[in-house]
């Protein structure tokens, strides 16, 4: 088997059972009495070839390879007593093969029916099934007045137009930094919320937070958080601001 046939065929298979049925048919084997050793060998050859080609072998194929190998090895071992006999994997596989083969044949028959009846078209009442439009309303269900009413409603709750000018934030990081340092110096350690102020908007909170990070990087403040998502406590760093003697 050349690498090319393998490449082509593996993509044609609808899974491991399909591949197995193909091997059984190709080698003219009896599905009711499959020589497992032979089939397992052929099957594994396929999988190996596929892997050599770096094809992505779906895990289902590998599970089947394991099943085949296990059945093969089981058949080599002496049979144990019936007591501990769980379901015979060979019988299970046979059932799978026979069932899958039946369904594959039936899908073929359904395909033929599909080919015939797909070309039969229903009356106009049912045509909506293929229409790209949404289902139409019944005639008389709406009038021109409804249309006018809908338009008026729209105009009534029209929101004021969005402002065309946006104000630039009047804050700057430098200001925030100064503000934080002053507050800390005057009032000592405090929570972030108090630092920002009671009813600060999101913009102010973000600016203050950035400023705080900047101060932390510079080693001028120490930030503590006792629990995840808890309040931040901010204190002036001892090293940075020994009372009185400002560095630089």
């Amino acid at each position: 088997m050349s690498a090319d046939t393998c490449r082509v065929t593996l993509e044609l298979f609808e899974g491991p059972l399909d591949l197995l049925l193909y091997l059984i048919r190709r080698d003219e084997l009896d599905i009711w009495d499959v020589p497992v050793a032979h089939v397992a060998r052929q099957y594994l050859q396929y999988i190996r070839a596929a892997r050599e080609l770096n094809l992505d072998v779906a895990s289902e194929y590998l599970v089947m390879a394991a099943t085949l190998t296990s059945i093969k090895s089981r058949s080599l071992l002496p049979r144990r007593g019936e007591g501990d006999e769980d379901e015979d994997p060979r019988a299970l596989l046979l059932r799978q093969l026979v069932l899958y083969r039946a369904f594959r044949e039936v899908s073929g028959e359904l395909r033929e029916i599909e080919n015939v009846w797909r070309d039969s078209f229903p009356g106009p009442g049912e045509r909506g099934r293929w229409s790209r439009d949404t289902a139409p309303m019944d005639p008389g269900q709406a009038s021109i007045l409804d249309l006018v009413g809908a338009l008026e409603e729209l105009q009534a709750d029209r929101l004021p137009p969005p402002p065309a000018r946006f104000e630039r934030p009047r804050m700057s990081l430098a200001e925030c930094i100064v503000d934080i340092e002053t507050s800390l110096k005057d009032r000592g350690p405090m929570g972030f919320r108090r630092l920002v102020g009671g009813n600060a908007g999101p913009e102010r909170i973000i600016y203050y937070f950035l400023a705080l990070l900047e101060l932390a990087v510079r080693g001028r403040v120490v930030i503590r958080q006792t629990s995840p998502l808890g309040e931040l406590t901010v204190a002036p760093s001892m090293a940075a601001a020994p009372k009185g003697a400002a560095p630089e």
Partner: protein
Amino acid sequence: MILDKLAREIEAIIFAADTPVDMETLTRITGALEDSVQQALDRISGSLEEGGHAMMLRRVGSGWRIVTDPALGEVVSLLFEDRRPGKLSRASLETLAVVAYSQPCTRAEVEEIRGVGCDSALRTLLERNMIRIAGRRELPGRPLLYATTQEFLLYFGLDDLDHLPRLDEITELLQTPPEELQRPDHPEGEKASPKEDAAEDG
């Protein structure tokens, strides 16, 4: 054949309906008895056929509908060109077959028979309204149950689920436990008897 009043009424109702019309609806609307309606349906069918019309009366599930003769499909489909979904893929068709014969069934049951994952095939079939969710199986995880739809019958021109090809054979196959499965040719066939050496060997 000239149709009588009842047959004409029924023909008009079926033609105008947006779904196949069932017997209950026909008797209710026309006020006629079931027998008369059935005979009228036969007359409509006969007259369409006799007159060489392009339309035919078909039973779908529990209802009737008027459709064009599939022999004219090539011409008519030009009208709908890009509005029709394509044919079902092989994976979808196989999955649909398994659902049709073993419904209601779970995804795991379908996958066991096909030996491959069927997630995307089931989703395609749901989207195309060939199958529907028919509840949950009372198992751990309460998996969804799938069953076929009326659209499925319409699409395949099946009168009802009893008209699925090889229904008895496959139903029996589905119900046979693996250890009782036998070659169909000789139903009383010699059971290859591995049971004889049941004696425990140490």
